[in-house]
């Protein structure tokens, strides 16, 4: 029973069924009004027609009554009475007795009326109490006689009655059909929505690989399913990105944390006592500082990935900023036996966060110096001038400003270049280098935040990093 009521009731609660019910009701009301109006008008028309005919005959009879004697007239009425079965007559003498006609009695309903009206009469052979409906009018025939002529309208009434019944049955059937259709549509919609719900429930339970089935009918439900699937794809992509990121972060932080712990343990075991403790603590602080640096870089990248820059953006000359930052590193480059060639054009304005762009340029120049320095050391000190130059250039190309930092270091292999720019990615090689190794990731994040790009190119030999930023409007 519950299953049965469930089968019928649940679709009734659907939007589709409600819509079907409402539209069926509205249709029925409007149809009833229209048909009612038509019916009424037809009826009036027919009645008018009957009354018109009666009047014409009444006028004719009035003339004949004048032209003939009462007996002759009674005979004429008698003749007419026999001719048809729908025309009704009753001629009464002044005394009230019947003289001619096919009506069994004078219709009392219209006895006092001058204009006539509707009355009921019984035909010979009819069962008593089953009167037939007729319309009658009085005819002035003089000499104290009274004549009533009428028309039997039973057939008309019956027709009208039948039409009414047909319409009622028809409407009833239509309404039931509409409701059943609504119920059926509701059930089919419900079934598809239930499929979508079941899928989303299993996704919420943790199975992100599930997808909502698409029927291929290209209707709104299909579109909804397709959109849900698109959303799920995006979420899955973000989730796997997040997993990769947290793996990287875990690796980047756990290793130095472990080193920090190691130095604290080693200090505790140091047999020299106070002196050993001091050294251990100093090492621990140094390692904590490294850890903080890495952590800050990771946090900054994460913030940049999610952030907007508008509030802290200012319009400034990119050339002079890059020049200043590069200059900060000039003594460092010199000590490493490198030459820093800075070439920045005049007034290349961008709208950006000055500190972030500064940080990005600092990372690039710092990296360039570190990697070039290794080559210089490997070559046994001062190398050929060309091979020891780190170039920092700022130029414009189209609507973009381009910062280019090129070194003569080992470069990055082509297959690794895309990866090197990904979020939180450190290339294996960089893990053995000092620093957080997140320099390029951070540069890429800064560029992305400012709607810019980063390209890694072969400086043959070495690496050239090109950062493009949109010029200030």
């Amino acid at each position, binding site marked *: 029973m519950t299953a049965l009521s469930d089968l019928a009731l649940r679709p009734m609660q659907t939007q589709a069924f409600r819509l079907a019910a409402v539209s069926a009701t509205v249709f029925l009301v409007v149809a009833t009004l229209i048909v009612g109006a038509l019916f009424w008008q037809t009826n009036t028309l027919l009645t008018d027609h009957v009354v018109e005919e009666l009047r014409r005959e009444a006028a004719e009879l009035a003339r004949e009554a004048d032209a003939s004697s009462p007996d002759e007239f009674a005979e004429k009425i008698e003749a007419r009475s026999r001719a048809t079965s729908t025309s009704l007559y009753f001629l009464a003498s002044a005394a009230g007795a019947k003289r001619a006609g096919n009506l069994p009695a004078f219709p009392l309903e219209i006895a006092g009326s001058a204009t006539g009206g509707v009355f009921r009469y019984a035909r010979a052979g009819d069962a008593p109490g089953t009167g037939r409906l007729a319309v009658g009018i009085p005819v002035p025939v003089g000499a104290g006689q009274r004549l009533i002529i009428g028309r039997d309208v039973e057939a008309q009434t019956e027709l009208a009655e039948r039409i009414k019944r047909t319409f009622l049955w028809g409407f009833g059937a239509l309404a039931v059909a509409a409701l059943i259709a609504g119920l059926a549509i509701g059930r089919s919609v419900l079934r598809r929505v239930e499929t979508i719900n079941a899928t989303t429930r299993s996704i919420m339970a943790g199975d992100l690989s599930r997808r909502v089935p698409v029927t291929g009918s290209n209707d709104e439900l299909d579109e909804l399913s397709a959109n849900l699937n698109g959303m799920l794809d995006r979420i899955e992509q973000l989730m796997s990105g997040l997993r990769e990121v947290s793996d990287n972060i875990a690796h980047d932080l756990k290793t130095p944390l472990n080193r920090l712990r190691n130095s604290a343990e080693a200090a505790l075991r140091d047999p020299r006592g106070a002196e050993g403790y001091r050294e251990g603590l100093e090492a621990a602080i140094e390692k904590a500082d490294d850890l903080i640096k890495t952590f*800050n870089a990771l946090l900054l990248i994460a913030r940049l990935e999610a*952030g907007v820059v508008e509030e802290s953006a200012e319009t400034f000359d990119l050339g002079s900023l890059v020049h200043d930052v590069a200059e900060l590193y000039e*003594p460092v480059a010199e*000590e490493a036996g490198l030459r820093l060639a800075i070439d920045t054009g005049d007034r290349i304005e961008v709208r950006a966060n000055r500190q972030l762009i500064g940080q990005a340029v*600092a990372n690039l120049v710092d990296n360039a110096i*570190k990697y070039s320095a290794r080559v210089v050391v490997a070559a046994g000190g001062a190398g050929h001038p060309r091979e020891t130059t780190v170039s920092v250039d700022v130029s414009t190309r189209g609507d973009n400003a381009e910062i280019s930092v090129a070194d003569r270091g080992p470069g990055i292999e082509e297959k690794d270049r895309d990866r090197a720019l990904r979020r939180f990615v450190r290339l294996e090689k960089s893990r053995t280098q000092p*620093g957080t190794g997140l320099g390029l990731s951070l540069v890429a994040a800064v560029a992305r935040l400012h709607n810019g790009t980063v390209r890694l190119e072969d400086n043959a030999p070495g690496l050239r990093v090109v950062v493009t930023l949109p010029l200030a409007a």
Partner: protein
Amino acid sequence: MRVLVIEDDRETAHFLQKSLKESGHSADIAGDGETGLSMAQSNTYDILIVDRMLPRLDGLSVVKTLRTEGDRTPVLILSALGDVDDRVKGLRAGGDDYLTKPYAYTELLARIEALSRRAVPEEQETRYAVGDLVLDRLSHRVTRAGEPIQLQPREYRLLEYLMKNAGQVVTRTMLLENVWDYHFDPQTNVIDVHVSRLRSKIDKGFDRPLLHTVRGAGYMVRDGAL
């Protein structure tokens, strides 16, 4: 120096109180924003250290309220937030300096000492002198024992900042922020290289070094040993 520390983490607050006492200062502690505000309003402090995220009333509101009331006590804002705009917001609210957690105590100490000095109306000194080192701010000339020293513009500004804070520790970050106006991590200790170049120009050939390295903290210009 009398310091008010408005910090809700008890361990951090007590660490600061103890450390400041060891450094020769006295410190009061407020555990939430409302208490901190009323303590700052009813007492006179040389410096306020305000954490940004506080129960009841956040740090920035405390500073804003004090500033609207005309209180000009120097404020150092501490923050565990790391947003790009946080520093700007902190300074806009009326903070005088901004330090992101985690920080080194030496950094905090150097900054509040620099801040408390800045609070004393700076009589526009036209020349700084430490020992026989003289920096003339009008002619931009530097002499040591009467001998002129040639400095690059950036070296001049570096020395100017160090001499302005003579006798006080100046950290690398403070130099980067005040001499270069950079609020980012330069990865390498670039500042060390710049300072050592400056040192070679002002101390080389003299018996008494004036530009000292303070281990684990930063630098100090001072006549005499540390």
